[in-house]
């Protein structure tokens, strides 16, 4: 599952990101490590502010610095270190090797350029195509993402299209250079439920057809269950558990994952009151020395509040960051 090195497209090791604040700074992501295999759809789930989007931005070299800064760690894409790459190198990586899809399709396109122009722009930067050829390829790509009458739509401005259509455009823009890795940051959150399924299916098809890998960031466990191969759960900047998607639901290792799983309504469920994890997430910077989840955890032991647990790798490749599991393994 977590594969050997040569099958991994992306390898993140010990990634730590800090937010500079007036009172010293806060740890936003702490010591996160994960791999994304070739052709794999890797989910990152967690609540708002758990560090999942920041992780994605750091991988693409798009962290707003300051205030956010990568403190430590390594991000390797196809064996190449990205964190020490120059801005010019990162520019050539973005778009060509890494494509990004954003949450809000309505604002993800510049209102002053036509859809065709914007897709062609990303193409012109990474290929030697001239304007006309780039536009033709953009139109072809629009057809592939299921836009009807792509030639006409390419000449339209973004405000003329619906959210679902725009998200297809954004997907076309991210995939036009056929990057090895696609990072989708909550791509369906802003869309209607009926459109969500279409967009997810489209992304899965395209990723599968091109042998690409995808990091899918979401807070929706339903989306994870439907689309991902493997999933990492973030809580308060800690990657608390990573496992194949089936195992996460069948046999969660971390108490937080278990809480998440139990707080999702299922069709044909008991009909009783929905489970909620007690308490709320402490804000970044307010974490004590212990496990970041300990004050909301039903299974905590004395050690949890004093010392942060290390990440334990189980023999089957799953990882968990919890004292209870660490000792077992």
């Amino acid at each position: 599952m977590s594969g050997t090195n040569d099958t991994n497209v992306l390898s993140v090791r010990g990634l730590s990101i800090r937010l500079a604040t007036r009172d010293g700074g806060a740890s936003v992501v702490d010591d996160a490590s994960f791999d994304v295999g070739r052709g794999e759809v890797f989910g990152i789930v967690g609540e708002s502010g758990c560090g999942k989007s920041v992780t994605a931005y750091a991988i693409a070299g798009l962290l707003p610095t300051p205030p956010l800064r990568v403190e430590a760690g390594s991000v390797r894409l196809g064996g190449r270190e990205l964190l020490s790459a120059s801005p010019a190198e990162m520019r050539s990586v973005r778009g060509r090797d890494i494509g990004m899809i954003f949450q809000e399709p309505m604002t993800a396109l510049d209102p002053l350029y036509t859809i065709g122009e914007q897709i062609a722009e990303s193409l012109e930067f990474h290929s030697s195509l001239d304007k006309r050829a780039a536009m033709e390829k953009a139109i072809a790509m629009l057809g592939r993402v299921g836009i009807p009458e792509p030639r006409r739509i390419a000449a339209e401005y973004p405000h003329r299209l619906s959210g679902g259509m725009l998200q297809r455009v954004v997907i076309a823009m991210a995939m036009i250079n056929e990057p090895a890795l696609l990072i989708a940051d909550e791509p369906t959150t802003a869309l209607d439920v009926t459109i969500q399924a279409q967009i997810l299916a489209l992304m899965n098809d395209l990723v599968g057809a091109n042998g690409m890998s995808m990091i899918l960031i979401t807070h929706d466990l339903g989306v994870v269950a439907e689309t991902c191969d493997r999933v990492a759960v973030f809580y308060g900047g800690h990657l608390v558990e990573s496992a194949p998607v089936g195992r996460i639901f069948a046999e969660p290792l971390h108490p937080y994952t278990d809480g998440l799983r139990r707080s999702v309504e299922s069709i044909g469920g008991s009909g009783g009151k929905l489970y909620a994890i007690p308490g709320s997430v402490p804000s970044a910077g307010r974490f004590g020395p212990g496990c970041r989840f300990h004050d909301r955890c039903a299974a905590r032991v004395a050690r949890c509040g004093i010392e942060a647990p290390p990440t334990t790798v189980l023999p089957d490749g799953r990882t968990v960051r919890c004292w209870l599991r660490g000792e077992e393994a």
Partner: protein
Amino acid sequence: MKRFFAALLRDKTGRLGLAGVLAVVLTALLAPLIATHDPLAMTESLRQAPGRGFLLGTDEFGRDVFSRLVYGARVSVYVGLVATGIGALCGLALGLAAGYYGGAVDNAIMRLMDVLFAFPSILLALAIVAVLGPDLGNTIVAIGIVRIPVFTRTVRAEVLSVKSQEYIASVRSVGVRDSRVLFRHVLPNVMAPFIVQTTLSLSSAILVEASLSFLGLGIQPPNPSWGSMLSESRRVMELAPWTAIAPTVAIVLAILSFNLLGDAVRDILDPKLKSVE
């Protein structure tokens, strides 16, 4: 562009403002054709009331007030346009740099603007003219400098808001380089408030010019400017009130026209007020 003018003409305020501004500009351009007398020529008929021969009467030196008013429009329009142009272009460049690059660049530029802003605009213009010496060119430069902070702030605020839009992250995510992001994606998106600010700023520039000339630091006599005409009229205000009324009305109407036009332009360009097509 065609749509913009159509919208401007559909708007009542816009029509009125545009008509006023065109009247002032045309007067300035066609001054030699419109004026009935030489604006500098003194005649025997001192302080003659408006009527036959002299449309708006004569001043204390026997010069035709109407002709001086017409030539004064040249000064107002010229100073207004060039000074606003200087302020707008400098402000645009500084605002873009401050907003886009942030950090130390932003701090340096904005603190400098705060200093400029701290002076009342007339006082600052006075000081600059006093240093450079009173003549038309220096007046224009002074008024231009006074207008810079307004533009810098407007542009910077807009850049900050545009910069946080996802489409900027999106074009950066496909590898577009910084300068291209700035000039092709940020700049065009801040143009609307910038154009509005420019239109509104024209009237302020005209007013500052009138004030400077009134104080004797703008256009030097005997050349006519609305401000200096007003200033000269002070001595004979009771004997010849028309010498004060004419430039006052001209200033009020010109500024009103530019402001009305500015308001209409803002209504048209403000995306928040724009109707969905």
